[in-house]
């Protein structure tokens, strides 16, 4: 009559029971977890009426489209209004843009800034208090670090302009003033290039430099390029992988004119000598598949590799954590000359 089975509450019942209880616990845990990570749409300040949301509140939604955004809640330390020169008044309200909206102001150029670590833009127009046809627009780009500010400054530098003394890195054109100071890149564009407006631009720039701290330190790399034959204003920095080589970022380039020949030198500070060595090898190896030939393993520059590809000469070496070399030279002699000078300067600098 009795079967071969065990007592009531048998093992199998317990096991299956436990399994089912675990499933129930899992369901409860998933549901509760969602509550914990929930972010209220009100605080997330989302998408201006696009969300169908959880419909949590019949709430206010959406900013007005298109028009310039009014000032953000806390005034930025770099708000242009702080530096408005005397004799000028606000012509339009300040506009602020984050990475997602930057294109709304400068369209295609936003790419350049976004690639260089753009944080925020504050801009505002000021007009002469007496004559509102004389006006200028100021752009203060917060790039996050002095390196990044220098990047966008140097990459947009117009050729042949003269330096300005308002800041360590500044130049002036007929109708605009550009400078890189601390982590900011500032442009002041005058609608009409009158002396009055030019003075006002200079005044703005000087006040900016005086009030914003952190610009005193010079970017080290700028000092490390030898000054002989350096084309003025040619030291430039790109943030993306320079030369198309993976991992080779934070590269400064400079243009030298040696006996009429143009040579492009480069310099990059790495985290460690090992990394510099790896990248030096990567640089040299990168061009091999394209037909580069190594020439003269021995050179006055200790440890340097010289390559030739398609009639262009390259050179790469390391000094401590610094990776340096010549990217383009029309002949081996000028490549070696510049590399030599760089090597000496870097060794002197003792890094």
């Amino acid at each position, binding site marked *: 009559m009795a079967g071969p089975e065990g007592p009531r509450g048998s093992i199998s019942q317990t096991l299956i029971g436990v399994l089912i209880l675990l499933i129930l616990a899992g369901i409860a845990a998933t549901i509760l977890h969602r509550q914990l990570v929930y972010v209220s749409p009100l605080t997330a300040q989302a998408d201006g009426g696009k969300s169908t949301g*959880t419909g949590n509140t019949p709430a206010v939604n959406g900013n007005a489209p298109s028009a310039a955004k009014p000032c953000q809640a806390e005034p930025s330390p770099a708000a242009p209004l702080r530096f408005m020169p005397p004799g000028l008044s606000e012509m339009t309200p300040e506009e602020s843009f984050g990475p997602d909206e930057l294109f709304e102001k400068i369209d295609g150029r936003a790419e350049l800034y976004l690639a260089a670590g753009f944080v925020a833009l504050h801009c505002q127009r000021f007009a002469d208090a007496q004559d509102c046809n004389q006006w200028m627009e100021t752009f203060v780009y917060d790039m996050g670090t002095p390196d990044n500010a220098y990047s966008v400054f140097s990459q947009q530098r117009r050729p042949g302009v003269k330096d300005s003394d308002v800041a360590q890195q500044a130049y002036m054109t007929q109708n605009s003033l550009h400078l890189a100071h601390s982590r900011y890149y500032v442009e002041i564009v005058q609608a009409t290039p009158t002396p009055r407006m030019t003075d006002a631009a200079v005044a703005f720039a000087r006040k900016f430099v005086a009030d914003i701290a952190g610009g005193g330190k010079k970017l080290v790399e700028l000092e490390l390029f030898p000054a002989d034959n350096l084309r003025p204003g040619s030291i430039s920095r790109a943030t993306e992988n320079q030369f198309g080589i993976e991992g080779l970022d934070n590269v400064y380039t400079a243009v030298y004119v040696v006996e009429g020949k143009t040579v492009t030198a480069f310099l990059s500070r790495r985290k460690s000598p090992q990394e510099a060595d790896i990248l030096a090898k990567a640089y040299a190896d990168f061009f091999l598949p394209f037909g580069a030939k190594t020439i003269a393993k021995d050179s006055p520059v200790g440890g340097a590799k010289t390559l030739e590809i398609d009639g262009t000469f390259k050179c790469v070496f390391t000094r401590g954590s610094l990776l340096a070399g010549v990217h383009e030279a029309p002949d081996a002699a000028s490549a070696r000359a510049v590399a030599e000078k760089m090597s000496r300067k870097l060794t002197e600098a003792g890094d």
Partner: protein
Amino acid sequence: MRIVTVRRISQAFFLLMLLWMAMVTTPGDAWWRRRAWPVNWLLDLDPLTAVGTVLTTGKLYAGLAWAVVVIVLTIFLGRFFCGWVCPLGTIQQAVGWLGRRGRVLPRRIAFNQYHRGQSAKYYVLLFLLAAASGGALAWLVRAPQERPLAIPVAALAGLTIIALLTILRVIRRPVVATVGYLVVLAAVAGLGLVAPGDLGSSAMLLTGLADPIPLTYRSVSLALLAVAESAGLSLSPGQRWYELSWLIGGVFLAVVLLNLAVPRFYCRFVCPLGAMLGVLNRWSIWRIGKRQAECVQCKLCEADCEGACSPSGKIRISECVLCMNCLDACKHNLISYQRPKSATGEVTSPDISRRGVLASLATGLLAAPLLRLGAATGANYSANLIRPPGALEEEEFLRRCIKCGQCMRICPSNVLQPAGLDGGLEALWTPVLNNRIGSSGCQLNCNTCGSVCPTAAIRPISLDERLGRGEFAPAGPIRLGTAFLDRNRCLPWAMDRPCIVCQENCPVSPKAIFVREYFSTIRDGKFVVEAVSGATMELINATVQDGAWATGDYYCRAKGNPRLAIVANGADSITVAGPWRTAPPAGSEVEIQVRLQQPYVDPRACVGCGICEHECPVSGLRAIRVTAENESRNAKRILMP
């Protein structure tokens, strides 16, 4: 640990889940409000809703995919949903147990004997599915016209399947099956030549009326919780009111209390979901059964058998809800949840007759067009049926609404109400606006109802679409209807009393209600001037309440003067604003006029939100009422091109 303990825990878990989800279905971010609680999950699990909407719309919408999990598990395991998950089942089981407590054993066994009436639920199911399948059948019939190849393909495919099923001994009489199939196919092909019109393809989703999950949600949300709130439990901003709650609550009470007479009455006799699961479980891998045939027939197993499925004899698999009480009760461990069939035999098919099947199918198929003959979704539509913003056009809406009450529960202004029979039987308990109830009409910046509808009968719209902003600007805002002024009741039109409450509260910009001024001499408003001093004029034979005319709406028309506003009045004197052009001579007549700003509605701007109706001080039959003309969701109801 005994398996019945686990079952009880599971039942409590899901019942508490339903209660909790119903309680938090109120807008807000706090943990006791909507937040991110999956308030529709139990509705999504419901296979009857899923199958019903698939029949009526041809699609399986979003969250309803959860139902597939339940269906698949039922196919393998049996009616676990009924015994372990369904909250209505839990409630019934609890009440039934209370009803059986203290009874002697034979009585308890008698409660749980199988009754022939238990086949009724299958007929209910067939009726509901048939009523929902008009559209699907119409599609089937039309398909050969569009794709003539379909017929030979269907013939081949069908014959192959019949062959397979014959080999598997599912079909016992292959000849009959083949002939029957070919006849049906020919009929379908032939009918294709006579394509059914709109009426013939009517489909309505009536499952929500009998489906236990929406029924429980509805009863809890719209009746029980509202009653609890009136007793002090504060869940919503203010007391919630729901029309027809008496019927909803009454049905629920009846369902629950019937368990005192028959345990799990609803499950055994009525529930179409249980019926569907009962049909699905005929091939379940595991089922309740006896390990061996010899037993003392003590019938202890049937003392608490929830499904009334006769586990002691030939167990009826389609009725077994896996409550495991029999397994637990048997002192000899003869009953188990096992793969082989029960040693004393089993009945896998429900006890339904071919006649019954045909009858319910035919009734269901006829019901849909029959109910639509009243043109309630066409020319004879009920103008009082204002649907929520985002609701689909009426026939589409009725194909999806399961009357679960979620939208009505979450509506922040309590304006959504369960409909009565206004829109026909199929509109019973579907959401409509009643602008007199609640805190305001339909708030403009709100899309909450659509976000909580499990079947998208109310679409989840964005605020941009609701308000006609951004990419929806060309289409304009969603209109629920249009407000019509009842000049026979409106105070400034009919009663000489100034009032512009509706115009003030109209939320759209520019306002849809505008006013035109009209000056009317008040009743007994002609007086004779006694004397004038400065701006004050004394009147003969006037006894007026102090200040009665000083509200800013009253004016004085005196001889030789333009209309002047009255700024103050005493019992028999008035003071006007501004100098007289010529001081009215004593003895001349003067008229007291009231300035009436008479409202007009601009149908181009009105979105039918009902806030004007809600605010109208004529509180019985409101002087401005929203009706369904010009609602966006139905192009045929526009007021003007």
